[in-house]
């Protein structure tokens, strides 16, 4: 791989544009775009985001979108967004409780795809080592169906760019509380894309998939890794299964670039999921991802947002920490008062004042934690037991490459 030659060590890019700050599915929808300006302004007020690091999304080659989505589905989204009556909206997952039909939602969804593909392109061209598209991360969108607040799968389109245009092997790592089903479905038969998803078990949480026996098919056998964890999983147990599975998967696959879907809904405040990570736990995950990128993909890392439904207290702080990890910076212990002042009266609740939460998170049930950790450990070992023999086969093969 020669594309990293031009990237200065530590160079980072932040994809942003005013229209990405507008809600794709309406102002009352739980998928809140306000998370993006909250994150960006927190970084700006703290002096941690330089204007030269911000890039606007480029328009993508539309052919890339059609590699991921069926043409009739894309057409249905456009027609619905225009207000045309659509008999089969339901079969496309449109006009549902999760994905209501909203004017111009097609344009908004395409801009999100533009944003994530731009972040991927910036890294692939070697203009930066790491790039973030916090508007992206819509991992539930299926080939011909909207699902779970997602219309177009910006992650899958970015992976298509990285694989088909740049010939890169892509490791996709999904730390959203929900299984990354759309991305897995798009690539589970491909040998040049590894998908790893750690999530709350589908027994309890949407979308009901992502069990440890889903390990890829055909040429993609072994390139699909799932670690479903129990509701109530805390920092220690999450990090334990992360360390058990993720480094081995990356070592076996040997990616050229890592794409991180960094949904922030694994935090204990998230109202849509039941994992119990803290801000400190999320930071520990981010630190690990940086170290893994340095070790396995020459530092190359593309980051997106994703879920995160505690939009004021949790998401901006989590993603600001993630950006700092990418850029080698650090949030001040006390968050800037000017940030709070800038948002006063514009949002319905208080913003956090410190970079970390108080260490005392209240009473804990140690027996329950131990039991959850024990089960998560067993699940992670089942994931490894299914995949390790396949990975060993890759290592034995002559070119030291996964099947293509």
């Amino acid at each position, binding site marked *: 791989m020669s594309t990293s030659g031009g990237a200065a060590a530590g160079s980072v890019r932040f994809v942003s544009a005013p229209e990405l700050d507008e809600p794709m599915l309406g102002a009352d929808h739980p998928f809140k775009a306000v998370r993006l300006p909250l994150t960006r302004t927190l970084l700006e007020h703290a002096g941690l985001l330089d204007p030269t690091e911000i890039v606007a999304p480029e328009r993508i080659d539309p052919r890339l979108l059609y590699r991921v989505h069926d043409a009739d589905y894309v057409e249905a989204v456009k027609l619905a967004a225009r207000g045309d009556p659509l008999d089969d909206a339901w079969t496309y997952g449109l006009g*549902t*409780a*999760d994905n209501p039909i909203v004017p111009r939602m097609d344009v908004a969804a395409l801009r999100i795809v533009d944003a994530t593909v731009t972040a991927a392109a910036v890294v692939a061209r070697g203009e930066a080592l790491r790039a973030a598209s916090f508007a992206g991360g819509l991992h539930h969108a299926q080939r011909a169906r909207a699902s779970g607040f997602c219309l177009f799968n910006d992650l899958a389109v970015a992976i298509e760019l990285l694989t088909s245009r740049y010939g890169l092997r892509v490791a996709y790592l999904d730390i959203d509380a929900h299984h990354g089903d759309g991305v897995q479905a798009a690539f589970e038969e491909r040998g040049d894309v590894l998908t790893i998803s750690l999530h709350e078990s589908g027994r309890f*949480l*949407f*979308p*009901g998939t992502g069990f440890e026996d889903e390990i890829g098919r055909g040429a993609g056998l072994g390139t699909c890794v799932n670690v479903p964890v129990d509701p109530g999983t805390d920092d220690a147990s999450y990090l334990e299964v992360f360390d058990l599975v993720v480094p081995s998967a990356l070592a076996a696959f040997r990616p050229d670039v890592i794409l991180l879907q960094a949904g922030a809904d694994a935090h204990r*405040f998230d109202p849509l999921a039941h994992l119990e990570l803290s801000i400190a736990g999320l930071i520990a995950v981010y630190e690990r991802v940086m170290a893994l990128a340095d070790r396995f993909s020459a530092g190359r890392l593309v980051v997106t947002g994703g879920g995160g439904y505690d939009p004021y207290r949790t998401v901006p702080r989590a993603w600001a920490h993630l950006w700092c990890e990418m850029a080698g910076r650090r949030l001040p212990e006390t968050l800037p008062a000017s940030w709070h002042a800038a948002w006063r009266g514009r949002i319905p609740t208080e913003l*956090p004042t410190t970079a970390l939460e108080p260490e005392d*998170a209240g009473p804990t049930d140690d027996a329950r934690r131990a039991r959850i950790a024990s089960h998560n450990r067993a699940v992670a070992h089942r994931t490894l037991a299914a995949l390790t023999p396949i990975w060993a086969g890759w290592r034995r093969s002559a070119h030291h490459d996964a099947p293509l």
Partner: protein
Amino acid sequence: MTSNVAAIGPDMPIRDVTTLMELRRFRHFPIVEDGSGGARVVGMVSDRDLRAVGSPHPSARPDVSVFDPVRLIMSTPVITAHPDDAIEDAARRLRRHRVGALPVIEDDRLVGIVSAVDLIEALAGQRAGHQPSSLLEVEVPNRPGGLLGVLGALARLDLNVASVNTTRSDADAVAFAIRLDTIDAAGVARALRDDGFTVLWPVTVDTAGVPT
């Protein structure tokens, strides 16, 4: 149920039945006898029955060797199933008679065999639909219209039900696991609770007062 069933005659030596079982990787064989009315299932033999032969196991008959006909060790009378039996009926019969498989018989004809593993697979398949879904578990009064009230509320929220299973049932209440085509099960739970329904999952954790 497995339709491609291997049936053997009552006079086959036990040793040969064991070999056949290894070869076919089945754990149960129906024993079929040809009579005036056609082939009839007269017994069942399991891998456990075969292994007991010649062993000191208390249920083993000391006078039977592996060279004797299988008829001497087969189980009778045969507990059977019909192709139109409900899965839960077949499961109940397996439990009550403590057997591992039932020959499936239609009009005196052997058409298949159904094992405990087949039944588990069938029940597990009902767990999740083929489309993305969230789990909602509700408890309703065990009386007419109990579940209907929940389903009516879900329809008013414009939600599609992918599957429904009973998770628990007693004289007063029944709990149902309902899979819905939404990511926002928390919002659904809130709406149902506001309407007075008892929602068991998802639980809500109030974090409003927690220091940040």
